[in-house]
C-alpha cells in the first residue's frame, strides 16, 4: 500500500504539471480525506444495521441453512475452510447479498467474514490465501440482476434494458473465475504468516 501511495503521488505531480492542473491535485490532498470520512460515516449506519441483522440470522440458524445451500460452491473455492463454520457462514451471507445486488449488506457481511478468516490465521499481519480469494471474489461482480444499470438503461429509453443479462453473467463468471484462479496460483508459497 505504501508503494501505491508513493506511485500515486509521484505520478500525480508529473501528470498534474503536464496538464497544468496542479491546483486540482493539491485540493485533492486537502479534501479527499474529508470525503473518506463522509463515506465511512455513511458506511457506519449500514455497517451497524447489517451487522445487527447478521447476528439475528446467525442466532436463528438462518446462516447455517444458507451455508448448507452454498457449501458445494464455496468448498470449491475455499477447500481449507471445510470445517470452519463461522467463516463459511459469514462468507455465505456475503455471497447471497452480492448475488441479490445488496451491496450495502454485502460489505458488512464481508467484513465479518474477514474477521473470521483473521481469527483462523491467528491474527497475522499478512493476508492468507483464503483472504486473497475472498477479497478478489468481492472485487468481481456476483450480482445476478444489475438493477442500477437496468434502471438507467430503461430511463435512457432502451427497448429491452435487461437484454444485457446473458452478457453480464458471462463477463462476471469469466472474470471471477480468472481472478480466483490467478489469486490461487500466484499466491506466494512457503512464508505463511
Amino acid at each position: 500500500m505504501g508503494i501505491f501511495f508513493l506511485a500515486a503521488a509521484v505520478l500525480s505531480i508529473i501528470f498534474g504539471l503536464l496538464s497544468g492542473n496542479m491546483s486540482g491535485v493539491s485540493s485533492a490532498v486537502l479534501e479527499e480525506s474529508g470525503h473518506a470520512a463522509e463515506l465511512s460515516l455513511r458506511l457506519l449506519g449500514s455497517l451497524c444495521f447489517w451487522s445487527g441483522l447478521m447476528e439475528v440470522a446467525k442466532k436463528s440458524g438462518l446462516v447455517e441453512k444458507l451455508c448448507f445451500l452454498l457449501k458445494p460452491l464455496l468448498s470449491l473455492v475455499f477447500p481449507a475452510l471445510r470445517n470452519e463454520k463461522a467463516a463459511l457462514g459469514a462468507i455465505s451471507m456475503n455471497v447471497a447479498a452480492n448475488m441479490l445486488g445488496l451491496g450495502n449488506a454485502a460489505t458488512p457481511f464481508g467484513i465479518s467474514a474477514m474477521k473470521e478468516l483473521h481469527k483462523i490465521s491467528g491474527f497475522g499481519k499478512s493476508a492468507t490465501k483464503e483472504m486473497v480469494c475472498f477479497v478478489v471474489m468481492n472485487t468481481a461482480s456476483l450480482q445476478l440482476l444489475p438493477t442500477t444499470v437496468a434502471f438507467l438503461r430503461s430511463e435512457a429509453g432502451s427497448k429491452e434494458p435487461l437484454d444485457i443479462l446473458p452478457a453480464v453473467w458471462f463477463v462476471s463468471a469469466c472474470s471471477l473465475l480468472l481472478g480466483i484462479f490467478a489469486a490461487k496460483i500466484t499466491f506466494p508459497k512457503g512464508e505463511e504468516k
Partner: protein
Amino acid sequence: MSTLLSTDLILPAAVAFIIGYGVMKKTDVFSVFTEGAKEGLRSAAAVLPALCFLMTGVGMMRESGMLEAIIGFIKPFSDKIGFPEEVLPLAFLRPFSGSGALGFYEELCKNLPPDSFSARVASVLMGGSETTFYTVAVYYGAIGIKNGRNTVPAALLADVSAAIFSVLAVNLFLR
C-alpha cells in the same frame, strides 16, 4: 416486471425474511440485533484510516489528468480488440471509483443511443465488475492486514479481463 426485479423490493423483503425467521425461531431479535450492531461500530472505525489513505491517492491521480494520458497510450491496443473509444474512461474509472464510474456511465447513457454497441459494452462492464480498490481497502483495513500479498494484481487481472470480455460478450450475445 421492473418493480418485481428491483432492489426496492428485494431489500425490504430480505430484511423482513431475516427478522421473520428470527421471530419464528423464538430468537430475542432486538437484543441480538443491538449486540451485533455494536460490532458494526467497531468495523466502521477500523475502516476510516484505510479509506483516507486510498481516497487521497486516487483523488490526486484523478485530478492530475493521468486518466487522459493513459487512455491516449492504451487506445491503439483497445482499438485492436474493438473496444469502443468513448467507453475507455469507464474501464479505468471502474476499479478506482464507484461514484466516478457511475457518474460517467449515467452521462454515457444520456449521450449514446441505449441499444447501441458502445452503450451495451458500457452497461455490461458496469454490471459485470466492482470497485476493486475500495473493496481491498475496506476489507483489509477492517482487520488491520498490512500485506495484501497478490490480491491487487489478481483483482486487476480480473478487471482487465472484464473489459475485454465485455466486448466479446456483446458481440456474442447481442448481435
